[in-house]
């Protein structure tokens, strides 16, 4: 790691949210975080890469366990007031392999290797004087340092803390690791630049890239949602009817299949959103269809080798007519297209009889034409109320995820009491309704312009959520 790549060593007393800050800034939900003090026993390094090049590194450290005693030892090792950092180094060297001051040596080592200090305190508990030993040790290292006032609970002692921290740190910032959105993270990175000039270039690049990445995530999430909605609006299933069976008899079967397909697609879309925002442990809740009364559209169609019976007939007729036309042309038009007409009739009849052979006897074909179709196409599922529910759920997930800090543990709960779509301005909602209507009239391969229009509509909503 070159000197220009800043290393931020996150230090503080046990259980003050150091790992949470690292998880949030590193956008990594796998950083071990626990309510139990002393979870972090080693100094763990997390590097932010841009195209394989490290732009900054965060070091999660064990918390101070006995700062006053450590300070006392350091004081003893100091020979001259001007070489405080040498005393700290001597302390680390002296206790590196000892069973004493294990945490203190581990947290100080990366600082002495050139790390910048991020000292974390909890602004929701009162300040007390025994924190001064920690701050004093950090000051003695002589490294650039910043204090971060985290908020773990509900109390508010931030002013008290700021006053105390101001005596030891040139920069004091508030940062709620569990509630920090993207803009808060960027603001914090921007304030890191004030620590020293050396890290500025690298951090500028990181900030610039992260901003672009955030836009990309939003766009990709919108794409995942639009793909889901298109699927809900166009997905159909084809079922073959047995002799004597009616389309209505297969309704439940078709409904079940379509619901399973939609559930799968929805889960896939939600997971895609989680992945975009680097959440690896979240799961989405399952869509409950019980509240919807589905009335599927059933489309009867004859199919032989992918062609409807009507298509086969017309195809045969056209083929025959084509041959006949050739004869007409050869005759210089003197046959008055008679050959074309005869060719068409012959071709159509042949196609009809041929399709009959594939399905059984011609009589069976006639019977089926009179009696109904063999293949019934059911769907789509996503119409009326359901599509709005699917949209709402996806938007709620995307909104929650875009604002969720990676330090937050536990499941992501989506409340059904917050219908986003209903809260949108009428013209925005109408536009979505029109898009749904246009898409539902398409086959599964929706034209590019409609797909991108829907994605843009969703992306605009996600952008609004982030700004709100």
């Amino acid at each position, binding site marked *: 790691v070159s000197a220009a790549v800043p290393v931020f060593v996150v230090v503080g*007393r046990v*259980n003050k949210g150091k790992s949470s800050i690292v998880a949030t800034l*590193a*956008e*990594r939900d*796998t950083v*071990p975080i*626990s*309510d*139990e*003090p002393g979870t972090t*026993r080693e100094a*763990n*390094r*997390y*590097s932010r*890469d*841009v*195209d394989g090049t490290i732009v900054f*590194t965060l070091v999660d450290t064990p*918390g*101070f*366990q*006995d700062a006053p*005693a450590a300070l006392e030892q350091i004081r003893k090792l100091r020979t001259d007031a001007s070489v405080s950092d040498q005393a700290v180094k001597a302390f680390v060297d002296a206790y590196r392999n000892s069973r004493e001051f294990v*945490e203190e040596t581990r947290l100080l080592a990366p600082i002495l290797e050139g790390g910048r200090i991020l000292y974390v305190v909890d602004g929701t*508990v*009162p300040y*007390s*004087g025994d924190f001064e030993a920690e701050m004093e040790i950090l000051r003695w290292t002589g490294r650039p340092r910043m204090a971060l006032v985290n908020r773990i609970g*509900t109390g508010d002692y931030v002013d008290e803390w700021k006053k105390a921290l101001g005596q030891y740190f040139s920069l004091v910032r508030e940062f709620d690791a569990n509630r920090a959105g993207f803009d808060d993270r960027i603001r914090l990175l921007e304030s890191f630049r004030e620590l020293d000039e050396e890290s500025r270039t690298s951090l500028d690049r990181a900030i610039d890239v*992260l901003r*672009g*990445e955030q836009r*990309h995530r939003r766009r990709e999430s919108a*794409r995942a949602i*639009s793909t889901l909605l298109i699927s809900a609006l166009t997905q*159909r299933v084809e079922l073959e009817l047995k002799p004597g069976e009616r389309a209505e008899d297969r309704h439940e079967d078709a409904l079940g299949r379509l619901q399973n397909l939609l559930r799968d697609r929805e889960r896939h879309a939600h997971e895609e959103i989680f*992945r975009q925002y*680097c959440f690896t442990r979240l799961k989405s809740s399952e869509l409950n269809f019980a509240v919807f009364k589905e009335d599927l559209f059933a489309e009867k*169609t004859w199919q032989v080798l992918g*062609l409807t019976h009507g*298509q086969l007939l017309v*195809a045969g007729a*056209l083929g025959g007519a084509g041959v006949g036309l050739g004869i007409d*042309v*050869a*005759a*210089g*038009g003197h046959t008055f297209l008679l050959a074309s007409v005869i060719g068409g009739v012959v071709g159509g009849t042949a196609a009809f009889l041929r399709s009959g052979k594939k399905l059984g006897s011609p009589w069976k074909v006639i019977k089926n034409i009179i009696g109904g179709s063999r293949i019934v*196409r059911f769907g789509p599922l996503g119409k009326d109320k359901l599509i709005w529910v699917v949209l709402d759920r996806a938007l709620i997930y995307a909104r929650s995820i875009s604002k969720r800090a990676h330090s937050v543990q536990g499941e992501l709960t989506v409340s059904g009491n917050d219908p986003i779509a209903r809260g949108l301005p009428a013209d925005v909602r109408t536009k979505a309704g029109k898009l749904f209507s246009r898409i539902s009239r*398409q*086959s599964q*391969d929706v*034209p*590019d*312009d409609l*797909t*991108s229009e829907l*994605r843009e509509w969703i992306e605009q909503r996600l952008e609004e959520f982030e700004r709100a």
Partner: protein
Amino acid sequence: MSGLGLADLFDLESLVLKEKGESEEARRSRYRDRGRLLDQGIPPEDAGALLQSLIPRDLSSPTPGTRFEAALGWFHSFLALSGLLCGAVISLGLLHYTGDHPVNVLNVLAALVGVQLVLLLLLVIALIPRNRKRVPGLVQEFLLRGLQRFMTRVMPGSDPHLLKDLVRRLDAHMGLTRWLLVRAAQIFGVSFNLAALAGCLYRIVFSDVAFGWSTTLHFNATTFHGIAEALSSPWAWIFPHEVPSQQMVELTQYSHLEGKYLLRAAGDRSLNPWIVGGWWPFLILSIGTYGLLPRLIVLALSGLRIRRILRETPGRNEEFRRMAEWMKLPVVSTRADSPISSPTAAPEGRSGPDPELPPPGASCDILLDGSLDPGRDFLDRLVQDRFGWTISDVLAPKDLDRIQGTPDRPLLAVFSAWEEPTKGRQRLLRGLPKNRLIVIGLLNPSANGSQDPRLERIRERWKRQLQRDLGDLRLRVESLERRP
């Protein structure tokens, strides 16, 4: 922004299908690597150029796209040749004149103009923008099947399902398949009309064709003249003399039964050659105006449309947009530089009942943590209220050597309720006499009446950790909150 070629589009679609099922991270990383290797001359906003750079340009091994485009070229040539052949055969056939009967103008108009007008009308209807049908129409289905079969040859060994997808996806690009079909049809149409014109001119120049018109229908010369005049209106302002005159229409009405022009005497077949041959400019201009010209216009329109589709697709197609974006955007990731150990559960300490508290009225010593300074009066009241004890002495950590091993007097070690049982505090407790009851009193220095749930959890951790690490001491953990 650079547009794509048809071969590029085809190749990119093949690429998308080939990479289907591959992890997105792997794809993104690969695209970014390619993007970084790109010539600096390609502006990042030029999605078309970025996408084109993804296609291998090896002339020795043509891509599926170049093979597709080449095959399409052959297909167009075939259509052009077929059109030329048909146009020539039909026009030569229609204007075939043996001298027995004149060439029926109505016949020529029906075959070369009427049919084309009907076809043109159908084409206009087909091009009216509308929603695509859920089930592909006959023409579309046939076209798709033909394309699919063709692609099986162009891309041997490919999964047929992927090819089917590829064919289907082509039309999603703003109806590309439809426009390719329109263009192909116009190539045939233009060739046909050119050949028809050439055939007609050949007959006119190299033989003396006599024209007439005859029909079984009640169709008088005035009506037919009206129709001919209406048909001539597009060129009437440029070539006013090439509009059939009323006199020519009347004079060239022909009867097959009589074997003569109606206004001529029986057996008298001679008529002014300027009259019987006078229909030819009208016929040539009709074929040119209603056959060739619309085909040329539609051919140009379809060509422009296809170019527009190819130009706009990189920006409109979601998959292509992503590919271009992946090439431009740096990949951001976080990596742990060493294996991260998962939090391990602390081993359980000894479990057993807490030692009994002395009864009210007992006296105790206080060991006050350095961070706290509640004042003696406050402590007196607190200890009296909480335990009913009196305070004998208040000591600081630095006074450890003053603490006596008086077994009957509890030692109340007061710490901030917000602090964890750190090693420093444990070290302090370890220095206390083992024969004394030590009560850890956790005091919230800023108690404002509200109980923070975290305090309960911290107290539990004190209990657990001290039982585990200082099991040899007589310890008990208590909250120093005032009881309600």
